[in-house]
């Protein structure tokens, strides 16, 4: 697949931004600077970027508890997100949502979501709105291998087929539902066949290769955008961290994490491929690395200096208007 250089560099910048955002968030969590539960996406960056590079601002995504990568890939403000993780009132969600609820409706980000498979039904609603208005938009739901065993996921997939709406179900298999392997939790041998039995095509990608994800996502999104109803995308790629920050990861095989970082790192794969063909130089990618590190430094510094919420803000933003009662 050939891509314009500008797009190549943009894709790399997006993946690198996610990587550094996550790795720095990890440091700040371990330092006690970021409160709450945080689930890191490190390692899976090619999935989010390979999908979102096909989307316009008006297309929507909905994400998961492991949502930072999807939000950055769809255009969320990185500094606003970091402030949100720190719990500042200047955060993207005014410190009300935190890591698990980052959202930016204006940019088509219908939210990270703390409930496994909470997102797919909502995404079908966004796709239904696109169908009713006939505006050519699509709705992508990202969810993990854990989500495919939730009833809401089944309901959403079936309803999307019945109503023939432009919904794309992106299933990211990172092998573990929390601490339980997919080989235990999915009762059948062929999850792709089980999903396709709902009545839509599922395209498969190598989740550590941006180009593989980009190509498969393009097919799924084109299928949906062309009025053919929903489509699926499966991408396999392990996460570099635990389910949550602090997870002892007893489920990992010896050497599994080292192997993932060594042999299944989408940034390395991207760099090797694009520099080997001569499309991009190491110097150009190094320059992006430096830019991104500077941006993340700026984001963390801004988050640490940002104002904290005040007591009266607890009850703000519950309703648009609760009347005089």
């Amino acid at each position: 697949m050939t891509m314009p250089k500008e797009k190549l560099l943009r894709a790399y910048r997006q993946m690198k931004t996610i990587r550094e955002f996550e790795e720095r968030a990890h440091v700040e969590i371990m330092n006690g600077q970021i409160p709450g539960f945080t689930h890191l996406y490190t390692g899976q960056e090619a999935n989010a970027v390979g999908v979102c590079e096909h989307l316009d601002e008006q297309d929507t995504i909905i994400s998961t508890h492991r949502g930072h990568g999807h939000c950055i890939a769809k255009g969320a403000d990185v500094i606003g997100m970091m402030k949100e993780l720190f719990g500042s009132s200047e955060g993207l969600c005014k410190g009300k949502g935190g890591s698990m609820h980052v959202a930016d409706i204006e940019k088509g980000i219908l939210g990270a979501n703390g409930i496994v498979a909470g997102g797919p039904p909502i995404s079908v609603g966004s796709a239904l709105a696109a169908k009713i208005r006939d505006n050519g938009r699509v709705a992508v739901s990202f969810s993990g291998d854990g989500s495919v065993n939730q009833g809401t996921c089944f309901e959403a997939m079936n309803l999307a087929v019945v109503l023939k709406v432009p919904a794309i179900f992106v299933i990211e298999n990172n092998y573990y539902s929390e601490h339980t392997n997919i080989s235990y939790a999915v009762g059948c041998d062929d999850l792709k066949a089980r999903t396709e039995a709902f009545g839509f095509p599922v395209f498969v990608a190598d989740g550590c290769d941006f180009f593989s994800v980009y190509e498969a996502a393009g097919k799924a999104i084109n299928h949906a955008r062309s009025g053919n109803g929903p489509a699926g995308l499966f991408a396999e790629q392990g996460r570099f961290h635990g389910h949550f920050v602090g997870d002892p990861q007893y489920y990992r095989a010896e050497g599994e994490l080292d192997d993932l970082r060594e042999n299944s790192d989408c940034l390395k794969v991207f760099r090797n491929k694009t520099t080997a063909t001569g499309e991009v130089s190491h110097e150009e990618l190094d320059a992006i690395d430096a830019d991104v590190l500077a941006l993340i430094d700026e984001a963390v510094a801004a988050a640490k200096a940002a104002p904290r919420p005040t007591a009266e803000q607890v009850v703000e933003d519950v309703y648009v208007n609760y009347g005089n009662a």
Partner: protein
Amino acid sequence: MPVKTMRDAINEALHQAMAEDDSVFVIGEDVAGCNGSQGEVGSVGGVFGVTGGLYKAFGPNRCIDTPISESAIVGAAAGAALVGMRPVAEIMFADFIGVCMDQIVNQMGKFRYMFGGKSTCPAVIRFASGGGFSAASQHSQAMYQILTAFPGLKVVVPSNAYDAKGLLLQAIKDDDPVMFFEPKALYQEACEVPDEMYTIPFGQAAYLREGDDCTVVAFGQMVPRAAAAIDALEAEGISCDLIDPRTTSPLDEGAILESVEATGRLVVVDETPPRCSLTADIAALAADKAFHALKAPIKQVCAPHSPTPFSPELEAEYIPSAEKIIAAIKATLA
């Protein structure tokens, strides 16, 4: 003024709202009916007939039948509302909140707060609620008291056809998610309902009777029953205020407290079991904010702490009767 049943008043409100605003659509199980069958599509109009005619008037893109998938129905409404539509979803029986609670409570009810006030979710979910049909334990619950507990949701319980039309039109225009409970025992009850569109603001109780001796607060299908009880007591020289809050969230606390201040007595009536109920909630409100005015213990008239029974004799015992309301009012005066 024309007389209409609550069913027809709600149906008229849906027709008018959909004609006025093309972002309004209805979605649910059999809201059109007969899709994929030999029958004529649209001939059902919901299991209670409330959405009749909408398919014929507005077509398949705006009167949308779904599989039996309550989580997907509520989720689809939530997602469509997040991107600017005004869906009106129907959950056939309020009891089925049990299978779509996450999408109501954790999703649509919390979007705005979790997203820092940067989203709106102007969805309406309609539920047929309450007992009186020998529909037994899984098709008879009121359920509105449960959703009242969740910040982010507005909860509406009309007690007559006039209020049902005006409150539903307000619900559809409202920018927050609104849970609209239709007491199914009242669908056939009729009163005067204007043909034109009108709205009733949320958080404003209706004063249905005025009296000096006791304040009676009742919800949904208990409102006409409480009115009958109060009317029967008139012959004995007992007069009561009757307050129908109409919305349980927001709640018109001022109307209730003002009345209790004046009468010094309070009876609260609802068809739900007593624990964590609206009757307990209103009693706590009065105890907290009008204790000094109370001349007698507050009385709660409600169902017992049991599931709703099937047999008509058992259900008649279960749901508060006018006689029980009369006894409670008299007890406050004893």
